[in-house]
């Protein structure tokens, strides 16, 4: 199987067998996800449908197969999840929530489809932006996930990400949001879900990315955080999410992208990590698991591939760490 899809990087045939990425299998795996509707798993994950679509689509773009899912079908689906108030739900009939609104916007941006959105829903972009902006807590600067008011740095990052993709960052108080992130900085150099919450690689990604969008990386103790992040690598090459925990492929993204934003990607052993991710592939049916031998899923598939992309694995499209 040739990896001919990338933007002109050669040498793939030279890779040893255990370093091979099974691109066609992964493309097929992602395409098959939506045709498995008779399986229990399919409806149990309905609350993730839009996220899943975003992850699958992103993986396909990185693999160099952006057209492997139908553009019109995707747009129909995103619009069918859009509520009158500008929020987006996980699937038709689900309540609007920040996480799915962000995924929806990311999908539209990936497909360069904001004009299509306007054609289908006039004023759609403004509506979505307003929905997101209204979830900011004017006191603390952070964001809620929905009308329940659950707050988490994940939502703050999502808000800034989606608003900047739509060119609507001016609708929120960025300085306040930045101050909130600073209040989540911990004694070990990391960040958690809220002030005082344990440092966690996923939350660190959300905080570092939000600060990058806000242009305030100067507020981060970069050497200290970089050291903490690089400490996530274990002897087997994989990365964990917190000290003294097990490795998991998804941290290939959360940790690596954070290191990339801090320009410290080289502080870990990239070759060892790439080998670890590749061991987690299902080489027959496609997809990537959390660790070797486990069940694959689309979440670990995209984060494994995105990790490999940051590591400049040949043939993959380069991913933006934010």
């Amino acid at each position, binding site marked *: 199987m040739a990896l001919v899809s990338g933007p002109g990087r050669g040498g793939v045939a030279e890779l040893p067998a255990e370093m091979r990425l099974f691109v066609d299998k992964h493309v097929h795996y992602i395409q098959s996800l939506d045709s498995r509707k008779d399986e229990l798993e399919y409806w149990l994950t309905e*609350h993730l449908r839009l996220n899943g679509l975003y992850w699958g689509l992103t993986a396909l773009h990185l693999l160099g197969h952006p057209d492997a899912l139908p553009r019109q079908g995707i747009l129909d689906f995103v619009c069918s999840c859009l509520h009158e108030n500008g929020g987006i739900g996980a699937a038709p009939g689900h309540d609007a929530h920040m996480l799915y609104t962000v995924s929806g916007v990311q999908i539209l941006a990936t497909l360069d489809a904001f004009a299509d959105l306007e054609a289908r829903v006039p004023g759609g972009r403004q509506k979505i932006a307003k929905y997101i902006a209204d979830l900011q807590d004017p006191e603390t600067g952070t964001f809620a996930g929905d009308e329940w008011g659950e707050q988490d740095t994940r939502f703050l990052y999502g808000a800034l990400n989606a608003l900047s993709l739509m060119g609507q960052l001016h609708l929120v108080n960025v300085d306040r949001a930045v101050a909130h992130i600073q209040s989540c900085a911990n*004694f070990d150099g990391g960040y958690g879900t809220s002030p005082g919450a344990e440092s966690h690689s996923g939350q660190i990604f959300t905080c570092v990315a939000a600060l990058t969008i806000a242009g305030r990386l100067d507020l981060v103790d970069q050497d200290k955080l970089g050291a903490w992040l690089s*400490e996530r690598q274990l002897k087997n090459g994989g990365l964990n999410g917190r000290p*003294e925990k097990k490795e998991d492929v998804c941290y290939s993204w959360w940790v690596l992208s954070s290191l990339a934003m801090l320009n410290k990607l080289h502080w*870990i*052993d990239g070759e060892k990590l790439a080998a670890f991710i590749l061991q987690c592939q299902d080489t027959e049916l496609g997809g990537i698991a959390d660790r070797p031998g486990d069940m694959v899923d689309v979440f670990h598939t995209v984060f494994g591939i995105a990790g490999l992309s940051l590591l400049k694995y040949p043939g993959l499209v380069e991913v933006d760490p934010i």
Partner: protein
Amino acid sequence: MAPTFYHDDPKWSNIKPIPQNDTARPLAAIAYTDEYSEAMSYLRAVMAKNEYSHRVLGLTDHIISMNPAHYTIWLYRFKVLSELHADLREEIAWLNVTALKHLKNYQIWHHRQTVIDKLGSPEGEADFIATMLQQDTKNYHVWSYRQFLVQRFGLFDDEGELKWTEGMIEEDVRNNSAWNHRYFLVFGGKGEQTADKAIVERELNYAKAAIKKAPQNQSSWNYLRGVVRRNKLPTSTLKDFALEFADIEKPDDVTSSYALDTLADIYTEYQSKREEAKKALDLLATRYDPVRAHYWNYRKRLLE
């Protein structure tokens, strides 16, 4: 367990279920199993007429048991509880059982916070948390929830809370969540305020004792270094202690890479100790933490 259906249940005969409408949405067509599909169509029907009743409470229970991550249902369940002025203690009892079945679910924790906040008392929560942590001592949701309780009910200076945290660390000295909770209790409520000297001393001794038990432990070293930094003590305060585990004159006897790292930091602060600092970093790059050789070499370059 046999599936539960509603169409032949007389208690539900006045409801006309609303089935999922997924025509002409190629990517959204969802084929449910019959039980889930029917329950959801009854939920849509009762939500459409804003019914808040005990039978709806039962219906949400049924759907949550099949799919706890469906966030819309939790939202509606809380509305029903409020409208019925239901006994929230009973809700907590129900949540105790439900939480054990769904350890990594976000919604369940937020629901619990909302209910406990309304109840205004953390009574019984410690036992529940103990049960949850037996399943996974590092469950992020559980520890975040514990922080919520500390904040909501002002337990920062509660002696029992600190004792409990100590017990968790004793059980597993590598439990980073427990160390973080300790930091949260001792310093977290204080903001920028200076801490009592005696308390700082107590915390340094506590971390050092834990390190002696397990020298190669990120969590206890992070804590020790964190306490030093927060209270603006010089890193050299830790020099004698670090030397117990790593001495660049005895490169074969290093028992903790974190001690070596600490020594490198201390030597770096002194112009006259540059060579010692480089030696410590070399040992880390080549022998004691080679996976991160690039990082240690970067630190070395900063010295030149």
